[in-house]
């Protein structure tokens, strides 16, 4: 239905260039798209509208959380995403969609897994900072750094 193509904009490194076309065949299935956001979230939905800033309107969106080999889908409904938060956007091949080594689990399970993973990461981070402090070094955390 809507097909996209991306390239880097030459003037501004931040905005995406894409060209929008229609699938002239009206009887085709809609195309699912996968969007990766700047905060790391993965959204999957039918892309209904897009504009020059890559603001997106996603229909029947599902937020997919990946932990290890498992993933879980949280249905979210309609999403309107501001273009500056989009990292990449791609079309999902419906035939190949089920052809994945990943295993789908329930929402509760995946959220639990995610929490566990976050905890483990935090602990290892803490240990690292501790070790560095003992040596008199300090690495500034990424979130306290300036963006540029």
């Amino acid at each position, binding site marked *: *239905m809507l097909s996209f193509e991306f390239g880097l904009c030459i003037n501004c490194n931040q905005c995406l260039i894409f060209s929008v*076309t229609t699938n002239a065949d009206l*009887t085709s299935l809609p195309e699912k798209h996968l969007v990766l956001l700047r905060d790391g979230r993965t959204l999957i939905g039918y892309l209904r509208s897009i504009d020059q800033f890559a603001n997106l309107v996603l229909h029947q969106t599902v937020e997919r959380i990946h932990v290890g080999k498992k993933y879980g889908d949280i249905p979210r409904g309609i999403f309107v995403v501001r273009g500056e938060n989009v990292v990449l956007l791609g079309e999902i091949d419906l035939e190949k969609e089920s052809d994945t080594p990943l295993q789908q689990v329930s929402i509760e399970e995946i959220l639990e897994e995610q929490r566990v993973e976050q905890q483990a990461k935090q602990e290892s981070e803490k240990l690292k900072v501790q070790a560095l402090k003992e040596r008199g070094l300090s690495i500034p955390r990424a979130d306290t750094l300036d963006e540029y």
Partner: protein
Amino acid sequence: MSGTKVPASLPFCGSFADDDWQEAHERLAELEDKPATARELEDGAVSDEMDLLGHHEENLAERLSKLVIENELEDPAIMQAVQTQPPMQQPGGLNSSIWDGSAVLRRIRGPLLTQEMPSVSVLEYAMPQRPLQGQEDERDLSERALPRRSSSPVIGSPPVRAVPIGTPPKQAAVPNFNQQILCPKPVHIRAPMQQRYPSPYGERMSPNQLCNVPAGRMSPSQFARVSGLVGSPLTSMNPKLLQGRVGQMMSPASGFRAFFGAPPPSAPPPSQQQQHPPCPGSHLQNLRPHPQMFRPDTTHLHPQHRRLLHQRQQQNRNQHRSLNGSAGDRAGHRSSQQEQLRKDPYANLMLQREKDWVSKIQMMQLQSTDPYLDDFYYQNYFQKLEKVSAAEEMHGDGPKKERTKLITPQVAKLEHAYKPVQFEGSLGKLTVSSVNNPRKMIDAVVTSRSEDDETKEKQVRDKRRQTLVTIEKTYSLLLDVEDYERRYLLSLEGERPALMEERKQKICDMYDNLRGKTPGQERPSDDHFVQIMCIRKGKRMVARILPFLSMEQAADILMATARNLPFLIKKDAQDEVLLCLLRPFSLVLYHLPSGTVTSLLQQLANLPQSVTAPAPANLHLAAVLQNKFGLSLLYLVLSRGEELQNSNAGTELMQDNQWTELMSMTTRELLRIPEAALAKPVSTPSNLLSLFSRYVDQQKLNVLETKLQLVQGIR
């Protein structure tokens, strides 16, 4: 008081002529003095103008809405459009059109509400919730509560929808919430098809309402054509609507199950559907606009993308054809029904027009007169790819992969003559500062400091800064020079000599920058050069500049490097960037004459011109040997010397005392140095063994052999 009786059918706005407003205002002022009872006597329905004048503003909105509704009922045009059957007999009837009077709609409101259809709630909000008009006239109007702000369809904002646009009706039967939402299964849910009133206001309908007209594929702009047909064909379309709706019902409805707690209503028997296929089908054909096989403009797409699109279109067309061509009327029809079930009713929410507009904006950004300047990395990347594919083609395999790139529009840059902004009505020209036209805002005076004031640290810092600036300037020259080849190819014949001149000049400038600006005939100090070489970027830059320099200039650079090598090695300890110089150095060495090679070795060994008694340990050389770069460079020099000796002009070198002296010096040092301290060179030239054999005896040769691993295979 009320001079003119305005007919009720005229809209409120038109009742005021321009010159009347003063009169009306006066009348208003007069009226306010009158007792309240006088108002009640008036016939509210007739003199609308007076009513409006005689009441406070807060009732104004209320009266306005009342006015509008009254107009509808009394408007002969509207009344004619109402069905002949009295309104009371159409509580759930499908025959009422959207243009029925509000009274009709209000009657119908009741049964409809139980099914909680959003489009009805629209109307519910659009009309104030009141009983028949007639009863109200008697009441005191000031006591009535204000209707909702958006109640008037004519004036004010569009009606508030209780349920947001896009929510599906509750009738959708959702078998299981946990089902994968995005892949609606073609479950045959037959929702009871009640009358659905498309919004009277919208040109753009929500997809829910779009599906009322069975051609769900229609874009909103085509709604206008169909609206006239809503009335009569609705009955016959009823079952077809069901079918058409099922597919779209599944997808949006199941997604929104969370919002609606209503259990799905029972489905009518499926037999109803099968009875009517042919009839609504024909209707469909009439109603649905001819599916436009419009071919979108795909020229701006990436060629691979275009191919994919066409392929997909072909596939779908083939599928569709095969489905329709299956034997049996019924079977064929049902499969086409299934086809429709799978159709996406939300497709083409973006009009082709809008998509083109977005594409146009994007393509505009790609326009450039000098793609190499604007889009350097993209261009270079594809050049590299082309080179690789050309190389592959040379092998005779033919083009393996089609590496096509996006063809961006090449537009000539228009000269924009800057016209300063002019204000109308101003005396003279106001100076406005902008990006194109900057104006001096502050009078800043540059004061240069005297030499005495500067401290040593500042001097050092300034010197370093100056070096950095020199590096930057030289680098830009270098980039320009590197670019000349491409420009040469693109330029016309006449321009080429000029280009060559420019290039030469730039190369000279670069060299001057490297060595310090013409300090006279002799270049007494390497200081400038050494400073540059201390900085990582400077070393890289020298490596890139070397190929462009003439032989003498390059040799000069080499000498300077060799002369100061220990110092540079010390400075390079952290970076280890000196190694990048090896390759250009070796290229230069290849062309050097013997005399230069000798002096080079001399520099490396740091011997003064005249031969003196050899020091017990040559620190300079020792340092060189312990460093990877130094050792590699030494090997290169030695190797070159050996080459020269082997060649015809080698006799010259043989006779050179200095060379012999240097060689013995070198070998001595090599023997002396412990193996552990010896650096690992980048590569060991193969002719070193033969070189050393000339100057040392067999025993020492063996030692050297093992130490330096001169023979291949001993690792």
